């Protein structure tokens, strides 16, 4: 936009800014206020209770479990998605036959609607009818199927694997684009100096992709921490809370049990966690810019 047309700037940005302010930031304040009131199915009229909700949340055994689950879930999904995604990007950067087709196919799980992916994996994990147990049994691992999702010792691993399958293609595509930006001259120089593939990866490729990797790690951390669909459809947070994370717990408390105050309390805690992650994201990005400049 040219200087003489400056007056249009505010008309152009107002709708977007207004929507985000009214439907995202204002409700965040709403969540904080909501958490200071107590409501339940029996007492639907909100009653001001101050910080009592937080005392109740922090004292409950559920809270510790949910913090623990959220950490495990986020850490496992993020690390696996990025490591596996990066390895696949390396593989798809080798100029092998069929590479073009692979680059098209790889995003399929990511495009598949989340609820459909979850239903598909629910079926894959089915104790009797599922593909996974059928495969394990015919490969000779026992003669009885495991109920992966119904057993609190395997449920978390099962939801993590489903989420990694759905999400790793995105990391692959981002890393593939970054790999193609690695300077050919530097690679050539390293090759002439006698560096093998592993040393070239460690000393040339990884340093030049540092910022992209850091930013992608933080972005997937944010997305995974907030991810609701997969766990809700696969396990609803069960069995015995073993897969409950913040988003599923908030939904269950609010819409399942009408304990809006407690749900909002969990909401505020997750907003604080996200605020910290977002700060980290900006610090990393700024660091990246400085390194480039």
């Amino acid at each position: 936009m040219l200087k003489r047309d400056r007056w249009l700037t505010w008309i152009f940005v107002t709708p977007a800014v207004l929507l985000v302010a009214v439907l995202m930031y204002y409700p965040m304040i709403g969540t904080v206020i909501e958490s200071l009131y107590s409501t339940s199915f029996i007492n639907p009229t909100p009653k001001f209770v101050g910080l009592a909700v937080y005392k109740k949340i922090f004292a409950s055994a559920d809270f510790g479990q949910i913090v623990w689950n959220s950490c495990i879930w986020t850490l496992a999904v993020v690390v696996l998605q990025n490591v596996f995604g990066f390895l696949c990007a390396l593989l798809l950067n080798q100029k092998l036959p069929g590479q073009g087709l692979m680059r098209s196919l790889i995003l399929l799980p990511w495009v598949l609607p989340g609820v459909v992916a979850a239903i598909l994996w629910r079926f894959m994990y089915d104790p009797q009818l599922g593909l996974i147990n059928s495969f394990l049994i015919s490969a000779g691992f026992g003669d009885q199927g495991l109920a992966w999702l119904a057993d609190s010792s395997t449920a978390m691993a099962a939801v993590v694997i489903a989420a990694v399958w759905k999400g790793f293609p995105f990391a692959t595509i981002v890393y593939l684009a970054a790999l193609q930006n690695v300077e050919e001259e530097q690679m050539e120089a390293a090759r002439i100096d006698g560096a093998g593939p592993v040393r070239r990866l460690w000393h040339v490729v990884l340093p030049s992709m540092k910022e992209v990797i850091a930013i992608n790690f933080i972005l997937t951390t944010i997305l995974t921490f907030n991810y609701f669909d997969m766990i809700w459809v696969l396990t609803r947070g069960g069995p015995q809370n073993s897969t409950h994370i913040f988003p599923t717990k908030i939904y269950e408390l609010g819409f399942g049990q009408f304990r809006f105050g407690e749900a909002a309390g969990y909401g505020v805690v997750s907003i604080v966690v996200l605020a910290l992650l977002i700060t980290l994201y900006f610090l990393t990005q700024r660091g990246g810019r400085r390194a480039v400049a």
Partner: protein
Amino acid sequence: MTPSRSSRLLLLALQLGLCLIILLPFFWMVSVSLKPAAEPFAIPARLWPENPTLDNYLTAFRPEFRTYFFNSVVVSLSTVVITVTLALFAAYSFTRTQMRLLSILMVLVIVAQMFPASAIIIPIYKMMKSANLLNTYTSLILAYVTVTLPVAIWMLRGFLARLPVALEEAAAIDGAGPFKIFFLIILPLCKPGIVATAVFVLIVTWQEFLFALSFTSTKEMRTLPVGMNDFIGQYGIRYGELMASSVLISVPVIAIFFLLQRQFVAGLTAGAVKG
């Protein structure tokens, strides 16, 4: 230095393995959807359907499913059009006008997408309820436009920032007004960015679950993801029909994705890599 024959074979085998990891669940979804009613219950599960049939598709395409499908199309298409339009205007202003307040606003808008929808779902639900908007397209479109705007602005900003301002200045010297410049110069030049953004918004909206689950309680207003979730209960373990519905839901997005893939991936990675 070309890699040796054996290491190339190993890489090819790995690539085949990756292909299997990606495609096997899809293959199974389609296979089960083609099995006659009793076949999915054969133990151990068979990968191929013995007697393929389209019966499951005929039963899956029931009136409720058609309603959900229609709702999803209305909500998704409206969201794509509104989001891309608003985002284009906003991103254009954000990249062309340098002002401290404006850049603060832009950061606030882009950051908004990173906060969890679940953390604000209760206040938004109450707002929609008091505005009498529950069980309407309006409530879903409003929510979807708001959650997709930040990403859309972020993606389009990358494209707009790369367009040289000199073009606009030249047009202005030739007497073009701001709207003529926007529609005749900017718009055609960022077509690839617009396509990439539209596909992204469509993929996100087509599968949105949390808002649809909270804002719609009547069968007439549910969208496909929420309808699918209901089917798990209703169909019991009629996996054939469940998988047939899954295929029907996935085909539209996958088709659009493949048609526009090249532009989509370019647009997505331009934003993600350049930051």
